[in-house]
Structure formats: structure tokens, C-alpha cells
């Protein structure tokens, strides 16, 4: 069983992107995917993105879970959007600093993280884009909110590969998601912090599930570690029931 913790959907008002993704899931035997609203939904149209995604999750509950978006620059409105999205069934927060125009360490994100802390919701953050979404910036945030689980999206691909293991070591509540990054860096993360803090992601549509699954398979992981990376860790992180 494969759980994919890194999928973005744009254009959800149209059925085509969702159908394309569900086809990918069927083709690659992905049993469940954690989906976030992409692009304009992440940056500006948070409310629409959350509502469309909540509807998709209700329609495909076995296949999909959803992450909410709330641009921190919206202030108290963002807090309200996030609370409503959680009430509507979304189960974590997606931060995308390059799209949303803030640095991970800026205090404007704190009110959103306080909501996540109170409601026990994980936070997935895009990482790898300087100067706003770097591994040590996310580790700083994870230290600031030690009760919140953070996921280092795309394992900081492309150019922060040197930082991944070091950032993970700074904060036990920080996990890493595998999409886009090369296998050797995923292995370094496993070696640095053990097999419980690495989650499989396809990175769709930026990357593709076939090659991302092949990448993890090519690492030659022991069966129990492979199972943790591809399924168990994500199930635990996101609170997914079997």
C-alpha cells in the first residue's frame, strides 16, 4: 500500500486535473494521497481552493485527504479560513512561501501554527526555494512549535541537499517528504534520523509517480523500512485509519 504525501491540484473547478490524478493513482497502485490546492489557490484564492478540495475529499474519501491553504498575509482572515477548512474536513496546513510571499521564519505565520497546534494538525511546507523556504528555516519553525508536526516538502530539492539531514536533526517534530530529491539524499536522511521520519511523495504534477516510486525501490531498502517510507509513516503522521 502506498500513501502519497505530496500532490498538488490546480484548476479543481474543472474535473480534468482530478481525473488525471486519480488515473495516476490507479496506474501506480497508490492507495491514498494527501492533496493540497496549488498555484492561485495557494496564493490568493484560498477559500475557493479549500472549498473545492473539501468537496473532492468528501467525494473520494478512500483515495484523498486534503490540506488547507491560508495565506499568512491575510492575518485574522487567514485564521478564520483555516479553522473553517479544518471544520470542513481538511486535515493539515499547506505552506508555500514562494507562492504566498513570506519567509518561513516570519512571525506572520505564527497564528496559523497556533491553530494547528491547538487542533493537532500537521503542517506540510514546500522547501528548497531560496530565500524563503529553506530546510533550516523550517527547522527553526519546528523548534518554535515543538508540538506541531512539520513536513519538509520535496526534501528541499534542488539545491539545499546538504542541509536536509542537519535540519532534521535539529527538530524531532520535523519529517521529510521524498519527491524530486535524489535517492542519495533520502538515504542520508534515513541514516541521520532513522526510518520513522521519511514519507513518500510523488510531487505530482511537478514530478511523476512512476519515477518517484522507482527511485525509492532502487534504494534497496529493507522491507520494513520500505513499508514505513511508503505507507506507515504517512499513516501515522496524517492520522489515517487503515
Amino acid at each position, binding site marked *: 500500500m502506498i500513501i502519497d504525501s505530496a500532490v498538488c491540484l490546480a484548476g479543481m473547478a474543472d474535473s480534468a486535473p482530478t481525473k488525471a490524478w486519480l488515473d495516476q493513482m490507479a496506474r501506480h497502485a497508490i492507495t491514498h494521497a494527501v492533496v493540497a490546492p496549488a498555484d492561485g489557490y495557494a496564493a490568493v484564492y484560498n477559500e475557493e481552493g479549500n472549498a473545492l478540495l473539501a468537496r473532492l475529499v468528501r467525494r473520494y474519501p478512500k483515495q484523498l485527504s486534503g490540506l488547507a491553504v491560508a495565506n499568512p498575509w491575510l492575518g485574522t482572515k487567514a485564521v478564520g479560513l483555516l479553522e473553517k477548512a479544518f471544520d470542513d474536513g481538511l486535515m493539515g496546513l499547506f505552506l508555500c512561501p514562494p507562492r504566498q510571499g513570506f519567509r518561513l521564519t516570519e512571525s506572520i505565520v505564527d497564528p496559523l501554527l497556533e491553530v494547528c497546534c491547538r487542533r493537532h494538525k500537521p503542517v506540510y511546507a514546500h522547501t528548497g526555494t*531560496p530565500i524563503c523556504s529553506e530546510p533550516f528555516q523550517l527547522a527553526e519553525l519546528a523548534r518554535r512549535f515543538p508540538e506541531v508536526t512539520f513536513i519538509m516538502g520535496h526534501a528541499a530539492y*534542488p539545491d539545499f541537499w546538504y542541509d536536509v539531514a542537519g535540519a532534521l536533526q535539529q527538530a524531532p517534530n520535523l519529517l521529510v517528504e521524498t519527491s524530486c530529491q*535524489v*535517492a*542519495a539524499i533520502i538515504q542520508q536522511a534515513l541514516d541521520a534520523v532513522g526510518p520513522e521520519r521519511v514519507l513518500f511523495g510523488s510531487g505530482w*504534477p511537478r514530478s*511523476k509517480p512512476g519515477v518517484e516510486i*522507482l527511485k525509492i525501490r532502487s534504494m534497496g531498502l529493507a522491507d520494513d523500512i520500505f513499508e514505513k517510507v511508503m505507507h506507515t509513516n504517512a499513516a501515522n503522521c496524517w492520522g489515517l485509519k487503515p
Partner: protein
Amino acid sequence: MKIIDAHTHLPGWSFGSRPRPIRELRRAFEDEGLAGAWLFTTDGLLGEPARNNDILAEAVAEHRDFFAPFCTVNPLDGTDAAIRELDRCKSKLGMRGLKLHPWVQAFSMMHPAVEPVLAHAGNLGFPVIFHDGTPPYTSSLQIAALAEKAPQTTIILGHAGLDDLYEDAILACRRHPNIYLCLCSTSGGYSEQIIRHCPVERLLFGSDGGFMPNLIKLAIAKLHETDAPASVLRKIFYDNPQRLLPLPA
């Protein structure tokens, strides 16, 4: 389908690697599906370019049917020194192209030595492949600005923008007829966009093979997973690199 990899490295002592006998490297590349490879130094990007050019040339001496060796120079050594080394690499070592990595070699594309080096490489018939996609020294449009000043030189963006800047790489390729994009380490979805929006004759396959294990077969799988038809993939995998730098393979 025959495949020539336009972006591979000779493993050296840097980046946690160890040197490998060239025969073993070739066999590994062939086992992963390659019919040929453009081969760059790794250690020479961090220092002593001339010595590492010698090492690379000696390594591939018996394997010119498979490897097209690329030299490197550092423009920070000065224009004259860099151009002398380019001439030596062409006439004495039989190098076939130039690899530059402004991030690792720590020079700005706007350094005054870069433009004459690119122009001279073009005069020698060397395509020049850059690491690109990493600010502040190797953004795709920084390299494109120099490509505009050396229109007779074939310039290759070695990572097609490396995800964060792939859309800038597309702009560069569409604007400048001397710019090629190498789909090396660019994620699959973005590679698909690049293939859709750029002239296919100026796209190349690359993997960074030799730098880390398993990169070649994953890079091949990545392009096969795009929606590009076989006729397009054939150009990217083989026809285009073979037209630029013919290998006997």
C-alpha cells in the same frame, strides 16, 4: 532507442565520491542504457582545472567511441590563462566541449572574463554546458544574457532551470537560437512542459550520471513517463546530441 547522455561526470574525490576505473564506469553507463556520454570532470570544477583536464583526457583515451570529454577552465584565472587552457584542451587533449559551473567555481556570469571565454570556445567549435538553475550565479537568464553576447557559441543550460527556474529556461531557449536545454535533474512534470514549449531540436537528455548512483536509469524513466511521443524522445535522447557532437557509437 539509442541514448546519448549529454550530462555525466567522471567520479573523483569530491562530493563524497571516489574515482572509478573508466572501463567500469563505461560498463555501468552501458548497463543503464547509454550508447554514449558527454563526460565532465567533477574534481576540476573545485580546483586545478588543467590537471583535471589531463586526468579526464587520459581516462577516456581508449574510449573515444563512447565518451565525448569536456574540459573546464576557471575565468577567475584570467582571460588569457583560460583561453590558453582552452586552446591546449582542443589541440593537445582532443576535448570536445567546455563545462562551466559558476556556482561551484564561484564566478559571476557578469565577470569580464566570461564573455571572451565563451566567444573563444565558440571559435574552437566547443559547445559550452553550464550548471544552471541556482541563484545567485547561475540563474537561467544570467546565462542567457551571455549567450546573447556570444551568438556563434552553442550554449547549453545543463539543468534547464533546475525546477525553480524552468520557466525562465524556456524563455531563454525560445528567445536565443544558440541556447539548448539539457533535461538533467529537471523534474518530470516540468520536463514535460519544457518539451511542449521549446524547439525540440534544441533539447538534450542528461542525467548527472557518475555523480551519484542510479541517476541514469531514473532520468531515462522520467522522460519515458512524460507525454512526449517516441519521435520526440528519439531526438532528445539521440539525434540532437549526435548532431551536435557526433560519436561513432
